Structures are given as structure tokens and as C-alpha cells.
């Protein structure tokens, strides 16, 4: 249940996290809003940052241009 599938498509939980990150948020805020457990959100955020879809700004996560394009 990785958040990015091998073919590059996103799992529903990843899409949810990306949408919520249009406004910068912390992992805890994203967990609260999405209803996903915090460990799942942290794991997904790491994967999304590695894929260049999010970037870290302190303890906040911000949608990148690639992330925005992925949502369109």
C-alpha cells in the first residue's frame, strides 16, 4: 500500500494528502484532516517528497509544481 504505484499513479490516500497540502501543513495537521494515522501520513509524505511532489519547509509540507501538475 505504498502511496505511489509502480506505474507512477497515486494511491487515493496520496491524492488526499497532496490536495490537503495545497496550503502548507504539518504531518500532524494532515493526519487530523485526512483521518489517516500519523505513521501512514509520515510514510506517505516521505515518499511524496522523494518523488518531488512535495517539498519540506521547516516542519510544513508544501505542494510543488510537479505535485500540482499531478493533481490536474
Amino acid at each position, binding site marked *: *500500500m505504498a502511496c505511489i504505484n509502480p506505474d507512477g499513479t497515486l494511491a487515493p490516500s496520496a491524492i488526499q494528502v497532496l490536495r490537503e497540502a495545497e496550503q502548507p501543513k504539518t504531518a500532524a495537521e494532515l493526519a487530523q484532516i485526512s483521518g489517516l*494515522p*500519523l505513521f*501512514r501520513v*509520515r*510514510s506517505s509524505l516521505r515518499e511524496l517528497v522523494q518523488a518531488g511532489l512535495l517539498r519540506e519547509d521547516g516542519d510544513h509540507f508544501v505542494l510543488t509544481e510537479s505535485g500540482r501538475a499531478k493533481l490536474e
Partner: protein
Amino acid sequence: MTEETSVVSSPSFPRLNEPAPEFEAVTTHGTIRLSDYRDSWLILFSHPADFTPVCTTEFLAFTEIYPELQKRGVELLGLSIDSVYSHIAWTRNIEEKLGVKIPFPIIADLNKEVATLYGMIQPGASKTETVRAVFIIDPKGILRAMIYYPLTTGRNMDEILRLIDALQTSDKHQVATPANWRPGDKVIVPPPTTAEMAEERVKAGYECVDWYLCKKSLE
């Protein structure tokens, strides 16, 4: 004829009240690090193998107590030396045959990395399977309790819940819990460390057998 010597490394064992060893592992819910569980309690547990009868009953039992664990801020993370595909096939089989969806991730520890870090492989029991180990890790990542069961014996979920309740009660009220303690029972006041404190203790209104064994109710 050459004589080969092999060095068998002794398994490491984590220690209570020290940081639980960090890991990054492939699970049925993606790649997870121990530190992803920071700020929540975690029960990390190992089982010998997928598609085995005692383990199947344990997974049903862990799933049954999962809502109670979540109420206490506790997450579950399973582990065995099987592939993620085996884990997926087994949990799908459990859902299909028994109607129970396994809600927590399971580590696919094929290279035995996490199992070795946590002393889950005990060669006297099995060289290829993990024993039934349970590690309770607190929100700061500190290992707070360990239980080891043999391959033949399924774990007691009541005891695991009781242990969580006892640890959380000890943390919240700075007390200890007596044998067979259950939530609502009296707790043990930490023993005094000076003669003066001992004298004060017996006057303090606790239920005391003597100065070193005093109990009180929690409001």
C-alpha cells in the same frame, strides 16, 4: 582438507527503558520507519510465519483488540520473515475465509534485519522463523516492555491490553501497579527513599501493609 570456521554472531536484544532500535522496513502499508510512530504508542510484534494456524488466530485476536488499542493511542505493527506478497495473500485469505480485514501493517522482513535487531530469532526455537515477541514502545520511542512466547503458544490479548493500561497509568500518576492489577484497582505508591519519608508515609493516609508497601486509589 581445510577447516572452515564460521563466526556466528549472537543475536542482539534491545533493552528496556532505552531507545528502541530504529529501522526502515517494507510493509503491507508501504515503507515505514520506526520513527513514523513517534508521538503514539506502538506494539511491534513478530509471528513465526504466514498461513500457519496459531498465527492466524493471533491476527484475528490482535484485530479484535485494535479498536481498544486505538482508544489508548496505540498502533500495531506485525512482522515475520515472509515476503510482502505472502503477507498480502495471507491477509486476503483471512478476509475471504474468516471475514476479518487486518487493519495494521505487517513488516516483510525477508533479510531478517529487524528480527535480528530485536532478538526475535531464537535459534533454540527456530533458526528460520521469529518467535512470538511483543515490544511495547512509548511515544518518545523508548522500549518499555517485552514479552516472548514460544512458537506453540498463542499470545494473551488481555495481558497485552492490561500491560498498556498499566504502563500508561504508571506514566500518568507516577505510581507502580501490583500483581494482577486491572484498571480501577488500587495502585502502589513508590516506596520512600529516606527514613524521614518512611515515617511520613505511614501517616499519609494510604492503605499501608508497612512503610514499603502502600496503596492508594486513583480518583
